[in-house]
């Protein structure tokens, strides 16, 4: 049953050093506030899972929180590289990060399979790609009915998932609306889940088939206004595309990044950038 906690307390309670952590949100509703809280609490040796690492994981990796990264597309969307991710992979700064690389289709299916309680996802994937030669988590099975060779990947079952959503009601039921990505799957696949929301409301005002996650399937809810900023929250605020472009300059240089991190995360209380 969802407990209403401060973001500080939720992260302190559920995110342990060495944990496998998924922070999801596909371009939309990226949990920046939660990510920054993880950085502030100096969590270490995390295995970070995310389809599109985006700026939030660039920041976590640059801040030294990550040991491994499981992902499928690691760029700054529409801008270019994630320089902190590249610096870690190419030069080992602040330390080496091991990467397990998938395609989106495989990651999406792996989240789906995790939510479905299965150990593996099966897809028609990776045909002719060389990714299976560098990621031993990709295997192939044979369909017992048709003989077709299909890809299999382990399901995603994080120790803890952190997602951001528009709102929760007073029972802790959460509405996610717009581009819903794999957020529901991330919550349901995880051992523990933290959901940050823009606000708590009396009534979610959701349609009959809206993406609503019951409070009893969530562990902690924390209010984090503008908690997805500089990504966006449909119905609340737009994406700050300018910051995404500026990030290219900030993240390119280790010192500039460190300064940004100090000013906007470590010395920023519980606020997202």
């Amino acid at each position, binding site marked *: 049953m969802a407990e209403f906690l401060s973001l500080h307390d939720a992260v302190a309670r559920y995110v342990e050093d060495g944990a496998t952590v998924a922070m999801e949100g*596909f371009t939309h509703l990226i949990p920046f506030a939660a990510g920054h809280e993880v950085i502030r609490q100096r969590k270490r040796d995390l295995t970070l899972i995310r389809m599109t690492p985006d700026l939030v994981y660039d920041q976590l990796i640059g801040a030294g929180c990550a040991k491994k990264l499981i992902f499928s597309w690691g760029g700054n969307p*529409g801008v270019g590289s994630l320089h902190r991710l590249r610096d870690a992979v190419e030069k080992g700064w602040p330390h080496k990060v091991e990467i397990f690389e998938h395609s989106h289709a495989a990651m999406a299916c792996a989240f789906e399979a995790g939510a479905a309680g299965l150990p593996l996802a099966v897809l028609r994937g990776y045909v002719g790609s060389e990714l299976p030669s560098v990621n031993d988590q990709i295997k192939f099975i044979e369909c017992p009915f048709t003989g077709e060779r299909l890809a299999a990947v382990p399901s995603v079952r994080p120790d803890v998932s952190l997602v951001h959503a528009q709102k929760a009601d007073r029972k802790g039921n959460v509405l996610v609306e717009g581009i819903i990505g794999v957020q529901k799957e991330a919550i349901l696949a995880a051992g523990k889940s933290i959901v940050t929301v823009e606000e708590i409301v009396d009534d979610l005002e959701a349609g009959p088939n809206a993406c609503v996650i019951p409070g009893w399937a969530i562990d902690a809810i924390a209010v984090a206004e503008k908690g997805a900023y500089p990504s966006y929250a449909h119905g609340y605020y737009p994406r700050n595309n300018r910051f995404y472009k500026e990030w290219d300059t900030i993240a390119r240089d280790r010192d500039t990044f460190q300064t940004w991190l100090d000013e906007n995360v470590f010395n920023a209380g519980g606020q997202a950038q």
Partner: protein
Amino acid sequence: MSIEYTSAEMMTVTAAKALENGMTCFVGIGLPSEAANLARLTHAPDVVLIYESGTLQTKPDVLPLSIGDGELCESALTTVSVPEMFRYWLQGGKIDVGFLGTAQIDRYCNLNTTLIGDYQAPKVRLPGGGGAPEIATCAGEVFITLKHSKRTFVDQVDFITTLGFGRDGKARDGVPNIGRGPTRVITDLCVMKPDPETRELVVVSLHPGVTVEQVQDATGWEIRFAEQLDTTPMPSANELDVLRDLKARTERKHAGEA
């Protein structure tokens, strides 16, 4: 009347023309998205644009910066989860054409968006596969658009992120439930298609004013030219107007953001 246009505009307009009205198109971000939206705003008003963020049949007024801009959802018929997008819509065989960009492409149309150099010690780490590996195999066919240069057109890609026709041109042969693969590559210099037999890329059309030598100089292998080498039609005034308006709107929108 002479029409002025840049080689980038020539590329986008030509790429747009590849899309036919009514096609369902799984759109990559960047150049493919620009071309696909231009098609929708000109000759193909009923082209169905699908972005991997889950937005089905979207009609953005400005070009998205990311694959999941709010505009894509707000102007979509409906938005589904990302697992559903990849399972039901892409793998389920509902996509006529996947429209992709790439960092490297080789003579057999294999795409590399993973890295330059060796996987364990990369010279340059690129973003990775994203949706492309399965877009390229599950969509009915694939269009590719990118700028032409020796850096991007290489004899052998450093890494096959996404299958064209494999290292030997035969990787799709006999594979069940696989799309036709790349059917055309559109650059700022020319249009290429795979040879029906060998699958090697062949230049079928040069953009106006472009020479055979220019294409060869920008290609990292000895590229073949079709015996019947066409000249790509020029952009029309209307196509250029619509494209420039679209880009200006996009510029204004993104500059005006907080």
